């Protein structure tokens, strides 16, 4: 028994470190500049995803909207929440662009076309982004200290508690296989 104890101790400690400690150590967390509520904008303002996350006329995806899009409505606070007041005071009034952190940023060597997936593939936003569009708060941006990419590429957020495919290469390939699409390396790594 005594002979097994050191081995078991090492095993247990490393299991704890790997499963509990490592996720905390590997990621550094920072809050988003504004505690934005998708739920309020979807429910009360009646907005859909594409109202803010639109395609430009040339087909490129605009991504996270810029300040002028928000300032169109929020030139002055429209509600009573501290988050909105903070947004107007810190960003709208001084015309300062919020430095949003994109949860779904892909590595630089990846070419991803939103329009091909949305318009041609008829894929809903929720398919890849989960119910992010109905959240009341923005989760902190957790960045991998080594690779620099978001934790959200890898797995479902624990807060959201929903399922969506990961946005790693394996996740993309799995979805393409399910839909019977085969591609070459150059289609995504131009």
């Amino acid at each position, binding site marked *: 028994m005594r002979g097994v104890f050191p081995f078991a101790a090492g095993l*247990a400690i490393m299991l704890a470190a790997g499963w509990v400690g490592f996720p905390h150590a590997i990621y550094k967390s920072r809050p988003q500049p504004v505690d934005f509520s998708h739920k309020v904008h979807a429910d009360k303002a009646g907005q859909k995803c594409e109202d803010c996350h639109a395609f430009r006329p040339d087909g490129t995806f605009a991504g996270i909207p810029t300040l002028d899009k928000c300032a169109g409505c929020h030139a002055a606070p429209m509600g009573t929440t501290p988050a909105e007041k903070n947004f107007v005071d810190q960003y709208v009034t001084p015309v300062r662009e919020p430095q949003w952190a994109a949860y779904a940023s892909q590595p630089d060597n990846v070419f991803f076309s939103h329009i091909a997936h949305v318009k041609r593939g008829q894929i809903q936003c929720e398919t890849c982004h989960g119910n992010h569009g109905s959240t009341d708060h923005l989760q902190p941006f957790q960045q991998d200290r080594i690779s620099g990419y978001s934790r959200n590429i890898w797995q479902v957020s624990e807060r959201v508690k929903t399922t969506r495919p990961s946005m790693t290469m394996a996740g993309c390939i799995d979805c393409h296989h399910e839909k019977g699409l085969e591609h070459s390396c150059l289609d995504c790594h131009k």
Partner: protein
Amino acid sequence: MTSTRRDLIKFGGGAAVGALLTPAPWRLVTDTALWSETWPGVPRVARGEIRARYTNCSLCPAGCPVRARCLGDQPVALFGVADHPFSHGTLCPFGLAGHHLPYHPQRLKQGPVEQAKAAVAEAIARCGAEERIAILDLRPGRTASWTYRRAAKQWKSGTYLAPHRILGGDAAVNLAAAKNVISVGAPLFDGWGTPGNVIAARDKFRLIQIEATESRTASLADTWVPVQPGDELQTARKFAQDLAAQGPTLVLDAGERSEILALNQTTGALGTAIVSRREAPVPDSWNQAAPESQLDALPDRSIRVLLIDESAAGSYIPWSRIEKKLVADNPVVVVFGSSADGYGRHAGFVLPTAVYPEAVDDIPPAVDSPVAMFRLSTSLVAAPAGLVNPAQFIAGFAGIDAANSLRERADAIHKAGRGNLFTYADAKSTPLKDVKADDFWKALNDGASWADEAPVRPAAPILALVASTANATEDDLPLAVLMAEAQPTPGSPILTKLYQESNLRLAANRIALHPSAAKSCGIADGGRAMLQTRCGKLEVQVTLDEGLPPGVVRVPAVPCTLDLCGTSPRAKVVRI
């Protein structure tokens, strides 16, 4: 309880097993791989404003218009220009990957510029009475070509040399006017002319492709006539006699052999499918320029200084034909190019030049353009420091200021006041007489092309045919050499990797043999061999191709094999 070393080892073992059962090591491997993608020196994807910039592709004389999708200043994708009246929006695979070329691992970025200047100056100074200073321009018809001719005129014994061409200079092809096209190996659908123009004219002519193998063009022709090498003239003559009565019948030859192109004189092609083409206007002061000469017309051992502009891909003259014209004692040979794979292998000095799409140059009209054209290949990417502009380098030795020669040429064209300007951004065609000179120059730099007026009645040109020379008997060389299609060099690294790995085009060190020919040499597929001709030998790798006729070896049209086989149409292959 004391811990022993054994306990420590057991603890470590447990920790190691535990680590493997956690996501940590696997995530660390993946994250390290991702992290390595951002190391210094790894190319970073451009981020920035997305915009379109326009230029013309200078990889071949087709000069297809190009729309570049740029992120900031970095071109990331190239496309054709839709609605262009000549190219019809097409761009070949080489053009589509042209933006890779500045990053080619074999491109030259440095060279012995000052040493070359000193050597040339010294050689010019001691040039003997019977000796020449020669400039070999592989792509004549450009504005730089006029600079070379002007420079040659300034020297007492200056000579301007260009590859001999029957079609593509003063005589051009109007494909749309041909009822039939008899092509002796000319790669009509694989790099011969302007892709968009050939495709647009396709429905107007019947194509008879005469060649030994079923090339890509042969597979798309109306009729493929397989022949043994050596029987092409006889076969072409028979078809020409039969088809001439149906309408203008154009005869083309991959090797521009005079005896084959001479058939156009009897098929009604002259004045219809082959027309006389005037050159784009030049400033009056430029007309004091040396004429174009041919290498074979020079006496042997007469060139003291040879300056070769290889910066723009064009016809390659086998080195053996050039070497015998050089003086025996220490000729000075300077090559201007972006790689050392061409004449750089034989030169004393190789000076690096800009590549497309770095270089600013004009593109002469293609062989299938019945009218003169003027278009610029403008710079989409900044060229690295240390490169040489061949025209300005050579002009410096002749006391000519060539820095603004393109603007001067544009002004001369504008002054002539004829033709139309097609601007790419808005796809508009405007008569040149309605455009101001400054606007014309700006439009050319922003992406446009000028096309001359077509004559009301096209003139029949006089073809510059030359007498053919009989080859010496080569009974000891059993294989006839078939040259594959020419390809622009350098090519995009990923494009060349793809097609060479698939053998769609022969790699530079590969040859193709019929299995029976390979078996008689004792060579298996992929085996190493020596390709030998009268001009030398080259180590190659053999690919078996049942589509080849026996008795034939197919070689790539790259400088090392063109040197070997360009003047020696027969070869033998010996297993190593």
